């Protein structure tokens, strides 16, 4: 099927298609590079990479406005990029530098930019869904048409906070879209075990919320269901649960030996399940975009990430005297 034949993609302009590709490519390039740089030992702490799941962040977040909010997860770089966070500021933050988005106080797991509606990556699995309900309440009280998106992994969907939030959003009739990024591993544990074969969409249905499961490698499919859910939320129609079936190209964290995965699993995924390749194939074969335009974006993105890494490495460290600042607005 060509891109122009799908309902969602037929609504996309050329600029939107190029923008979607640029965002997905930026996430991929960012994550592949962090993977390499982390191995040198120069990046402190730990990082959780999003590569492989780009179609979800782009498919959902590009439908959002700056004043819509996203509550993210520990695997948050993709959401942050897709929500418009400054890529160089993100890289500097991951390096723990003063010029980082959070001035080195947050790191990979707490990247946030409220001015872009990025309510933070979150180091606590299941930490985000209640926050998204709060954003939804804000919209309800102000009678605005803002929308909140809560991203959660398959692991996080077992947290009480997630299940409680589905019910709260239903009870309060909140404009929240809950997105489960089911990447097949809760750290290392398979949903075959930790969810015993349960259809996750039924968790939403159990709270009276509409739900739909979608191929998380397919940008157009994600965009189509997200578009409907976001429109419903904006129009006062309440919350929706979306499950995106996906996988990740890297481990739970960098350094994870991934002994729990099948031999060759990631190589096979990269060969057959790559949202960028699929996207490029569809838009070029449909004649909507020229392959050269995508190659140009690839080059620009590589240059951007090169600059981001170089600038992050050269950036000043935080001032040790700032260790106790930013705790309170006033104290």
């Amino acid at each position, binding site marked *: 099927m060509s891109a122009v034949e799908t309902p969602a993609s037929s609504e996309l302009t050329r600029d939107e298609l190029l923008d979607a590709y640029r965002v997905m490519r930026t996430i991929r390039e960012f994550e592949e590079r962090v993977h390499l740089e982390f191995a040198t030992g120069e990046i402190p702490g730990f990082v959780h990479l999003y590569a492989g799941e780009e179609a979800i962040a782009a498919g959902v977040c590009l439908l959002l406005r700056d004043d819509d909010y996203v509550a993210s997860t520990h695997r948050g770089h993709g959401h942050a990029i897709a929500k418009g966070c400054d890529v160089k500021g993100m890289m500097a933050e991951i390096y723990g530098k003063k010029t980082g988005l*959070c001035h080195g*106080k947050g790191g990979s797991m707490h990247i946030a930019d*409220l001015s872009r509606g990025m*309510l933070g990556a979150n180091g*606590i699995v299941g*930490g985000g869904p*209640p926050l998204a309900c*709060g954003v939804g309440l804000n*919209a309800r009280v102000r009678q605005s048409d803002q929308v909140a998106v809560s991203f959660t992994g398959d692991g996080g969907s077992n947290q009480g906070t997630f299940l409680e939030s589905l019910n709260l959003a239903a009870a309060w009739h909140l404009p929240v879209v809950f997105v489960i990024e089911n990447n097949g591993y809760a750290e290392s544990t398979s949903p075959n075990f930790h969810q015993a074969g349960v259809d996750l969409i039924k968790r939403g249905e159990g709270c009276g919320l509409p739900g739909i499961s979608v191929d998380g490698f397919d940008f157009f499919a994600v965009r189509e269901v997200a578009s409907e859910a976001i429109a419903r939320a904006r129009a006062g129609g309440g919350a929706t649960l979306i499950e995106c079936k996906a996988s990740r190209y890297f481990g739970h964290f960098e350094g994870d030996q991934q002994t729990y995965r099948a031999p060759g699993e990631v190589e096979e995924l990269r060969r057959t399940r790559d949202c960028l390749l699929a996207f490029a194939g569809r838009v070029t074969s449909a004649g909507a975009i020229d392959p050269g335009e995508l190659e140009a974006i690839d080059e620009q993105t590589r240059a951007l990430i090169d600059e981001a890494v170089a600038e992050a490495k050269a950036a000043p460290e935080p001032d040790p005297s700032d260790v106790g600042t930013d*705790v309170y607005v006033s104290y």
Partner: protein
Amino acid sequence: MARTITYQQAINEALAQEMERDPTVVLFGEDVSGGMGSPGEEDAWGGVLGVTKGLYPRFPDRVLDTPISESAYIGAAAGAAAAGLRPVAELMFVDFLGVCFDQIFNQAAKFRYMFGGNARTPIVIRTMWGAGIRAASQHSQALHPIFTHIPGLKVVAPSTPYDAKGLLIQAIRDDDPVIFLEHKVLYGTEGEVPEEQYTIPFGEANFVREGDDVTIVALGRMALVAQQAAAELDGEGISCEIIDPRTTSPLDLDSILESVASTGHLIVVDEANPRCGFAADIVAQVAQAAFGDLKAAPRMVTPPHSPVPFSPVLEDAYVPSPDQIAAAVREVSGAARARPA
């Protein structure tokens, strides 16, 4: 002369006046309306003890009952605050902290710091604390030391109706997350409270009573119990100064040090358990800052290192009493007399 109302009425009035003044103030929690979706919605509970009664009919769009899902709605308060509201979330009993602590201490308290100063989280979590109504181990605790330990939180525990109103208005207008601890035994106590709105700044202790011989630091209900002890000791010629810190974070250490410099003796009375507690913290800070001012070792009067018991006999033995405080005062002042000048 100002009018006299109860601690509970003072809280209700502060909420009503602030909701009237500021349309971004929202109030939610279990049963704060106390009847949404029920046949008697218009004359609903207004909280299990009626503290929020009348607010739902007055502000129907901004007073919400919640499912019994503390993690979800306390977290929602944090998210709503980050997005620009001023939520007042009620955690019915402070003991229920146990089911939603993550949303308080890993989320709300840390947003500003983790996000490099680029966030404000103006939430108030109102919650009922303390022993005294035979509510046993899971509805009677004093957990202010746990909150006080967390950077990013402010912790407030009024002991009078006047303080309750002024501190709650301050809490609602404050741009940081505030834990507002309402002592359940004090709800019915009366005091003079101005009708107009006023604020009491955080970190300013109240000199409840002036005295020369011993400094007693006491918070919440213990400020009243300490006054009973002080009245008893007056008859013995021992003069007690009582300081109510009103907020444990920030803490007005200067006022405590000023008093200890004059009396030379320190007793800290607290309803929380003793280990790593509020009393231990005050004693340590005074010892570090003003050891030379102390004429005898400071004393802590606290419950034992045990949960709050149910039986009235046991609960009465658990909570610090005027007699225990008086005995501690006699002991330190006696020790002072025995010490060579």
